């Protein structure tokens, strides 16, 4: 399998690692601008109501307060935080800068801009708001059944979809029917860096925004359309990002911060605290899914019928797209003769749902994989054996998208993983009879590689060689913290056969870098990486052409090696990159650069199969994940250490999803888990040492065969853990998260 890569597949630290370990790298929270104002939000304390009165008189007296904003002095124009391109479908503009009718606890009511954050905080606490309360609909059931209270003008049904593909096969064999219901919960993204944004509107009429976003061009679209500015007069600069996981994917605070900057004519920084991040920004949506499958007694899936209801929260945002995506995952994973999926998004008076790592895959795959274990149990089959009969094979057709699943190696992942995990021995070992029960679980997951087949997916880059033989790759990257910048450098370095350290790679800046829709949809390595590769190849051709001119040899006689160009077969006739660059510039007056736009040609599946071992304390309900293996069909690892890190980090998130993380809303509509004290991320003592096994082929169009990793790594984790718990206890639990309270109740009722 080894292609003798020099750089690809090795481990490199992320390019700004030295700055991160010394504290030298400035994040948004660290950035300062002259005359900077600091903004603090005031959020609604009720789930639904009309803001009757806002009294800012006490707040205005706080020294340092410059201006207080609310619906009283802000435009009533609406925006959609998910609009990436101007004409984007399903982007309902229903989010105001400030709400007059508040729709959830945590909705934006007002903001204070002051000369210090302390002053802004103090003033925000002194704003008196009077509400007229309206009935609040806190669950999707309430929202659907209540016809009187409309959260949005069109009613409470935000979106509906139906997918029905394939045909009911002729049943040559006797079949069983299995039904399940899985509830996945609202979760917080939990990036360690809170949301932050800086904006300045200068006297020339240009708006500049510094934001740790996943898509500068989308931010620009939203801002320009909202304020009626020329796209060229809105400059959005992606700044270092302390994690996103989808939480910073949508354009949440740029319009508001820009508005405050325009009104005060000063730069403004809006920095959220943790509570605001949890209750105000976006959450992974809660989804209830009912699944019914018809399976032959020998274990072949015949029919898969699902119905999902997603809690959209108070606005539309990305919910229609996210909800529809629930139907786009299962047929990438399993061969299903007849697949039917209906679903809907429903408005509730709760925190807005939004993009989250895996974009609907963790939700629907968890439900699917928990269901598959129930089927296997009913068939009295080993769950791994059952899955092996039904998983997709390379180059199968995904019936829903009518796209090839590509070089899909999920079967290999499952087989090799089961072997490495000693699945058979451990599965049949029994779970013990005492207080502590052990169980193991496996789950498979599928995700995509970019937007091809449904949305814009092109990216433009420019690469140039400097006079000293070093390189600059100008690209609209949005490194969320997982080393995108480094990966692009490695890809280009492999092509040009130079040390990656000689290549400086940019991040996105709407004014300086080429178009790119953003870092999401698992499109970065697969598509943006392919663009880096082709851009470097284009430049390589140019370098060879120039070298041919200088050396008076046909280009075809030349090869590139180790930062130099050689004439094949003659060791002495060579030019270093430096010599080529210098001579080209000085003698031919030519610059060595290449511009390239890459259009994604395909969208194969990325796969992961994960195995968990758990130990459940049947007396306290506490569950520990004691062993974990994540197998990834990644095509090819570009930066091995970082790819492993993606899986290990995803497992941390998935264990929390399975066992403890939840943004819970109480009966008054208030979020219960509004801090890290109450919202527990899995910490170091509770994390197993996650083993990672990478399956590498290169049958798809990514650079050197690479496929996406960041999202797929997080798709099957929760299901593996839940299946392990159910194995340990002999239960069929599927109401997430599996808290000690729920587990103890289940043990009692067994």
């Amino acid at each position, binding site marked *: 399998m080894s292609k003798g890569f020099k750089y690809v597949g090795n481990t490199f630290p992320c390019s700004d690692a030295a700055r991160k370990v010394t504290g030298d790298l400035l994040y948004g929270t660290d950035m300062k601008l002259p005359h900077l104002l600091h903004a603090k939000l005031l959020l609604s304390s009720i789930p639904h109501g009309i803001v009757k009165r806002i009294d800012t008189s006490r707040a205005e007296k706080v020294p340092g307060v410059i201006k207080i904003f609310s619906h009283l002095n802000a435009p009533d124009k609406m925006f959609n935080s998910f609009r990436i391109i101007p004409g984007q479908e399903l982007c309902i503009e229903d989010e105001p800068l400030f709400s007059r009718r508040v729709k959830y606890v945590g909705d934006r009511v007002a903001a204070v801009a002051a000369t210090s954050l302390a002053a802004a905080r103090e003033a925000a*606490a002194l704003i008196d708001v009077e509400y007229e309360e309206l009935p609040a609909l806190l669950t999707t059931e309430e929202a659907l059944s209540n016809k009187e209270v409309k959260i949005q003008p069109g009613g409470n049904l935000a979106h509906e979809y139906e997918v029905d593909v394939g045909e009911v096969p002729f049943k040559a064999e006797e079949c069983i029917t299995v039904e399940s219901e899985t509830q996945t919960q609202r979760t917080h993204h939990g990036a360690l860096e809170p949301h932050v944004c800086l904006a300045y509107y200068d006297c020339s009429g240009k708006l500049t925004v510094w934001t740790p976003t996943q898509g500068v061009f989308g931010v620009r679209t939203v801002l320009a359309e909202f304020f009626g500015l020329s796209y060229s007069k809105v400059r959005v600069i992606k700044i270092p990002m302390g994690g996103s996981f989808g939480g910073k994917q949508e354009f949440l605070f740029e319009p508001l911060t820009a508005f405050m900057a325009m009104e005060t004519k000063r730069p403004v920084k809006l920095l959220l605290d943790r509570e605001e991040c949890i209750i105000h920004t976006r959450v992974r949506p809660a989804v209830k899914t009912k699944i019914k499958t018809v399976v032959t007694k020998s274990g072949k899936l015949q029919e898969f019928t699902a119905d999902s209801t997603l809690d959209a929260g108070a606005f539309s945002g990305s919910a229609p797209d996210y909800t529809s995506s629930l139907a786009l995952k299962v047929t990438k994973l399993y061969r299903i003769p007849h697949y039917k999926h209906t679903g809907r998004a429903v408005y509730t008076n709760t925190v807005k749902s939004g993009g989250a790592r895996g974009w609907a895959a963790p939700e629907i795959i968890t439900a699917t994989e928990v269901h598959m274990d129930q089927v296997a149990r009913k068939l009295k089959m080993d769950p791994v054996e059952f899955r092996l009969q039904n998983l997709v094979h390379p180059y199968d057709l995904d019936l829903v998208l009518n796209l090839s699943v590509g070089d899909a190696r999920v079967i290999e992942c499952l087989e090799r993983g089961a072997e490495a995990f000693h699945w058979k021995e451990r599965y049949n070992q029994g779970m013990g009879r005492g207080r502590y029960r052990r169980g193991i679980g496996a789950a498979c997951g599928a995700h995509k590689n970019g937007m091809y087949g449904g949305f814009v997916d092109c990216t433009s880059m420019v690469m140039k060689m400097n006079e000293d033989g070093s390189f600059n790759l100008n690209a609209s990257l949005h490194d969320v913290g997982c080393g995108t910048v480094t990966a692009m450098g490695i890809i280009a370095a492999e092509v040009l056969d130079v040390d990656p350290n000689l290549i400086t790679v940019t991040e996105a800046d709407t004014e300086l870098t080429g178009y790119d829709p953003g870092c999401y949809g698992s499109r970065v390595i697969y598509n943006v990486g392919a663009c880096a590769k082709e851009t470097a190849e284009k430049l390589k051709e140019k370098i060879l052409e120039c070298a041919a001119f200088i050396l008076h040899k046909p280009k075809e006689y030349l090869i590139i090696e180790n930062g130099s160009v050689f004439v094949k077969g003659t060791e002495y006739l060579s030019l270093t990159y430096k010599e080529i660059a210098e001579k080209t510039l000085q003698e031919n007056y030519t610059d060595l650069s290449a511009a390239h736009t890459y259009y994604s040609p395909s969208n194969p599946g990325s796969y992961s199969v994960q195995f968990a071992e758990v130990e459940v304390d049947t007396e306290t309900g*506490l569950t520990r994940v004691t062993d974990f293996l994540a197998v990834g069909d990644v095509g090819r690892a570009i930066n091995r250490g970082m790819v492993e890190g993606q899986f290990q980090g995803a497992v941390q998130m998935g264990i929390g999803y399975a066992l403890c993380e939840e943004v819970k809303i109480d009966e008054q509509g208030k979020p219960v888990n509004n801090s890290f004290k109450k919202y*527990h991320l899995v910490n170091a*003592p*509770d994390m197993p040492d996650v083993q990672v096994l990478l399956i590498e082929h290169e049958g798809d169009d990514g650079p050197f065969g690479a496929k996406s990793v960041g999202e797929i790594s997080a798709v099957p984790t929760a299901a593996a853990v839940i299946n392990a718990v159910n194995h340990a206890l002999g239960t069929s639990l599927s109401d997430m998260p599996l808290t000690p309270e729920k587990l103890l109740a289940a043990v*009692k009722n067994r």
Partner: protein
Amino acid sequence: MGNTVVLTPDNLSELREALKQAAPNSKILAGGTDLVLAMHENRCSPDLIIDLSGVKELKYVRLEDGHLHIGAVTTFTQIKENEFVRKHALCLTEAAALIGSNQIRNAGTIGGNIGNASPAGDTIPVLMALEARIRVMDSLGQVEEKDVDELIVGSGKTSLKCDQVITEVIIPVLGDDYRSTFVKLGSRRAVTISKLNIALVVKYNHVLNTISDVRVGLGAIGVKAFRDRRVEEILNGQQADDHLAQVLAEELSMTVQKAIPGRYSLPYKKEAIKGLAHDAWANLS
């Protein structure tokens, strides 16, 4: 908050002077881990703060006349690492080790934990089971000693007057024939607030394999930690065998049911305390 005065006494006499300025809206800052957060979240805006962190005379662990004397601003880390405490009040060592994170243990103090009077405070049931006395000093230098139970009157409430400060915890040393332990149950293994905690102290007669002078401190059940005298009575003089462990578990479950009837957390706590009781029992043997 701009008008808050912070006094930083460096010794006890400066502390007494500082206490003279104390008023109802004053706060004592020991480690700061709770107060600084409360202030930052606008839950508390004192006019005056008396910072004890500079009073080195309140940072010690001493063994004197059969008692452990622990200065109020001794941190959990110092307690956890102290050999006297480990030898003579193991349950306190265990409690200190299970509080918060390393960072919290390095800053948080025993005096602060008592004064904060959180229903889930981990040292409180321990100090009750150890029959500790809390020494309190006022602005005139007058000293009195109180039981933990007298000092803490409710959730976040103490009987301290505003010019009084906790200066010392005095713990009668447990004899060699005593065993003690502390266990807690949170929502994860480390860095967690107790949903339940148990401090257990027993005198063990290894000839007869019986226990006596049983003391059970329970926390996070209701607004205030307490000694479970009923269960202590049941256990006193009994054979220390597996059956008794079962009795302990069932009786503690009964206590929970009586303490928080109808509470949302009851179904879980009444079951989970059994597991915790077994853990405690296992630690004793």
